[in-house]
């Protein structure tokens, strides 16, 4: 019995090649998206860039003094707290960094994003990373 040559094989290769050649849009390592309340309240999700803050502040400022738990999603951050000077409001008060009335600068995420830690460069894998 003569076997038919697999005609679909080149198609699979073409498909794999197409996947491999599409540049993946990737967040910077350790970017955090906060969207527990944002979109439900009618604003874009927040994108928090760790790299930007790390150039200017050591970890202890936010994770010790300001009380941010070291797990994305574990912090209940509300605009009321921020305006009252808690969490982001420790710096985002118009004095150290821009004030909370500059909504769009923090609420800059793509609509529909899930909360969590994002980022390229070898950060994809099992578990939480």
């Amino acid at each position, binding site marked *: 019995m003569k076997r038919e040559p697999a005609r679909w094989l080149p198609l699979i290769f073409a498909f794999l090649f197409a996947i491999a050649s599409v540049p993946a849009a*990737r967040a910077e390592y350790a970017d955090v998206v906060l969207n527990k309340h944002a979109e439900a309240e009618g604003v874009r999700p927040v994108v928090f860039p760790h790299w930007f803050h790390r150039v200017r502040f050591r970890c202890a400022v936010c994770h010790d003094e300001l009380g941010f738990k070291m797990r994305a999603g574990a912090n209940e951050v509300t605009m009321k707290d921020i305006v009252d000077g808690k969490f982001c409001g420790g710096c985002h008060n118009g004095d150290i960094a821009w004030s909370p009335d500059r909504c769009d600068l923090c609420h800059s995420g793509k609509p529909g994003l899930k909360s969590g830690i994002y980022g390229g460069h070898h950060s994809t894998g099992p578990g939480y990373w």
Partner: protein
Amino acid sequence: MPRAAILRFVAQVLACATVAVHAQAPQPDFRQWVAIEKDGVHDPKGPAVQSLQQPREALQPLAPDGAGNQVRWVEALRQGQINPRPRLHGTQPLEVRDTEIYLNLRGGTPIVKFPHLAHTQWLACANCHEGLFRKEVGTSGLDMRRILQGEQCGVCHGAVSFPLTECNKCHNTSRIGFHAPDGTPQGARAALVVPPSTSAAR
């Protein structure tokens, strides 16, 4: 002088010059950062992408690495390329500690030399102790499987500090010729190393 000899001489001079130029040339920097309007998390239609700083602008001047933010943060701090604020209120500095701990003494992979110094320059003691890790050496039950699941060291490594693909940054000490510090109990999994600067002060 025959023409061939002259040509050979010229070629040798050129080769030497090329080697000299390359020896002095800085290492090429192949790092690339995705612009925030194309990174998949920022809304390219939003106004912020016009005004927020681009990662490339902030990170390219810093000590290069091949993973994570492609920056060796500890090295950037050591070289003074960055001077991040250690405290928001008050002048109390972070409590720096320079002891080191050998971990994984009974494992198969290379031994881990954990530097307190690099960690205490960034973090407060309370970020790790007594929650994630206990202060007493060898009692924290470190487990690579739990680290890979984002617990213990994996709370930061794999999320914000260098990722868990960089095995030998932590597993950095060869077992060959390794001798545990004096006083380490037989069969211990971890041992404290007190650096000369600290032990001299005691």
